[in-house]
């Protein structure tokens, strides 16, 4: 089948998509966007988290055809050219990236969280990120990164509610 959707603001068309392919497979193997990760491909780890029409989803659980004519945002769309998104920068500054395999999914989830609630409490952050597994960090520095990003966004007035 043919799939047409908008990914990170650019319209994409791919042909010969097999119906059984997931959005994750199409992004990674057909669109050259391997930033979304494939740690479980069964909806358990969150490493494949993308925004579909603005809502976070596990791309491995979305059939490619379901993305037809919709907006997909992936980790590759977060930075503004050479300038990192404040959430990306905070993950680096806080030391929240080790192997980094969980990072793309966590960045997308965190951006979504901070857009919804500008300054989440730790308890809220834990709830919001409970679907994103990380095997390396023990999550402490991920929490540090979320707090840091929230502070910076609040200071620059670019966080907040939508």
């Amino acid at each position, binding site marked *: 089948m043919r799939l047409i959707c908008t990914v990170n603001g650019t319209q994409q068309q791919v042909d010969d998509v097999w119906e059984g392919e997931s959005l994750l497979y199409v992004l990674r193997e057909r669109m050259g966007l391997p930033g979304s990760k494939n740690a479980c491909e069964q909806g358990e780890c969150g490493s494949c988290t993308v925004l579909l029409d603005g809502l976070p989803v596990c791309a491995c659980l979305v059939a490619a055809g379901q993305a037809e004519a919709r907006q997909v945002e992936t980790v590759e769309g977060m930075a503004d050219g050479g300038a990192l998104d404040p959430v990306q920068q905070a993950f680096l500054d806080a030391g929240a990236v080790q192997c980094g395999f969980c990072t793309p999914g966590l960045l997308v989830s965190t951006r979504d969280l901070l857009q919804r609630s500008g300054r989440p409490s730790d308890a809220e952050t834990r709830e919001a990120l409970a679907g994103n*597994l990380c095997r390396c960090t023990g999550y402490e520095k991920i929490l540090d990164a979320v707090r840091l990003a929230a502070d910076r966004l609040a200071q620059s007035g670019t966080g907040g509610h939508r």
Partner: protein
Amino acid sequence: MSTPTPTRTPTGAPEHLTGPGRGGVGDDAQRPDGVLKVRGEFAYGSDLWMEDMLWGVTVRSPHPYARIRSIDIGAALATPGVRAVLTADDVPGEKVYGLELADQPVLALDVVRHQGEPVALVAADHPETARLAASRIHVDYEVWEPITDARAALGHPTWNQVHDSAAEVTELSRENAHLHPQGNLVRHLKIRTGDPAPTADVVVVGEYEVGMQDQAFLGPESGLAVPAEDGGVELYVATQWLHVDQRQICSALALPPAKVRLTLAGVGGAFGGREDLSMHVHACLLALHTGKPVKMSYNREESFFGHVHRHPATMRYEHGATHDGQLIYVKASIYFDGGAYASSTPAVVGNGGTMGIGPYVVPNVHVDCYGAYTNNPPCGAMRGFGSVQTAFGYESQMDALAAELGMDPVELRCRNAMEEGSPTPTGQVIDSPAPVAELLRRLEAMPMPTRVDDGEVDLRDMPGGVSNTTHGEGVRRGVGYAVAYKNVAFSEGYDDYSTARVRLEVVGGEASATVHTAAAEVGQGLVTVEQQIARTELGVKQVTVHPKDTAVGSAGSTSASRQTYVTGGAVKAACEKVRAQVLARAERLVGRTVPDLRLAGGAVVSDAEDIAVPLVDVLGDEALEETVEWHHRPTEAIDPETGQGFAHVQYAFSAHRAVVDVDTELGLVKVVEMACTQDVGKAINPQAVLGQIQGGTAQGLGLAVMEEILLKDGKVRNPSFTDYLIPTILDMPPMRIEVLEYADPHAPYGLRGVGEAPNISSGPAVLAAIRAATGLPLTRVPVRPEHLTGL
């Protein structure tokens, strides 16, 4: 809670090495791969892609033990889009491989010895086509009854028969009872020191069991093999030790090392699970066979079958002490289930045996530690390597002994704690700081987490969380302590080294260094450490880390907490040689010897003589390069009868305090806080040190309360992240951490390997806390709800 900041006890690391913000040794330097990782542009093994590449998949045995009567590949080969179907007959070289013993078939030969053993390979132009074809391969098996208990595999009586010499053991009289020609024993390590028949005022005996843990790294086993024009192959792979892979691949392919070139692909975590081969040889075979690039990337289910796990263990301990808590003797029998193939079982037995009684001084020690073959999944390296299992045993015993003596458990530990100068059970004298008691005392002094009692119950603070299982009824709090130690680097006489090539030259008008090693970066931050060392030693800002490949000599494994020590040592030594060259040139330039010349700020400087020659002038357009193979001081093999010898080059020490809340009615556990103290000798990158402690703590916590590969008759029942649970951000509590820096005079910068110790002391502390909360003996991890409710 505010984020705890680490405190450090300075131990005389030279001031000029620790200047803030220079990205040198001692700084929180940022990862060189960090920007790529947050942009989603870092190329992991599973991200590799080439025009025209094929996808490889593996056909695996559904049976734990069976003979292969025949394999029919006809239907698979006839599937449109399929380019190759291979079996053992297509392996051109040695058909078996292994880290220490070559006993594992590249593709099954005649007999399969564990569920998931690779039997055949398929390459096709779409992964789904390859999977479809794989399902059409018909393998005719004669299924045998598996041997699934380590003690039974060795013909040893089960525990309740231990004192009954006439106990009936039938397992070994069965047909096919020996998995391998040499029998089912992989290694038996003995430690015999002191009085063989000691007596004591107080004796406690305990039997303990540790389930099979999985590394559960998030990045799947993956890589891309590209056939080369010279008849060789280029392999890009996520792995832990390029050169040991290369050796095994060459042997299987019957190719010389020059024709098997490996480059490290991005690695999504490892934790020991990538020390053995997975898809390496398979992808190369398919690529050489088809003449096309072949990518292999396991899905999560296959990953559970595609790598070794942590050895499950059963242990029996007997501790004898005086009335005032002085340990007199420890007797221990420790059994590691190695599964179907040896992997690193001999070394795991080495660790389990030599460090099996914990960081305590005991005059009389009698240990038997065994590794056995069974038809369970093969077990090998996982973070903590043989020491994680025994720590559950010996620390449970210390708590039991404290209870028997009516003594505080921390006090009992401190009374028997090792210190610098203490003998180990192998007769080795600890010749660097060993602040075991201090680690425990500092934990004790840390504030306890407070319960906010404002009348409101926040379900999120309760065991069971927002499932709304309790508002505090039946919830009891417990506190537990544990301390552990672990060898750093390879032991027992192994010639352990790393190779570093360092180049200094002017690039774009600036003096810049390149560090080239084959040391696998798996997420821990070694690439950062390599840069930091080069900046400090060469006084430059710009340091490039060359891609990791086999074009330079071996760096040894990224395991045993060894890379910062050994590859760090090699980088430091290579930098020193480059520096000597630079200084000699500078002296020629100024025309005389200057005794205090050093490199700093991109220049050759002398404080005494007010000299500052920019490096760009000293170097001109020449590049200075040195390659160094750096060995840590030698260890020695231990005596096979007594276990005596200088077995380990360095020890790492850490301690944990766990605070838990247990819903005693439902058996749910919430870990409220973890506190950790660790001596790291010198924190080369303090932020990364904390990351290791936090991550290691999480994996230990996981083993204590949730992580286990469940086996039934040798078959894995939970090969998915739905059923094999690892800690989420909801399961990990806030941590308090104190990092101590007591320099080890034998190690570069005084550093101590960091990664494993916190993975060892964390779980036993959680177990002790659950015991304290419930009063139950709890002799098995992971602890499950039914162990707590008695149902």
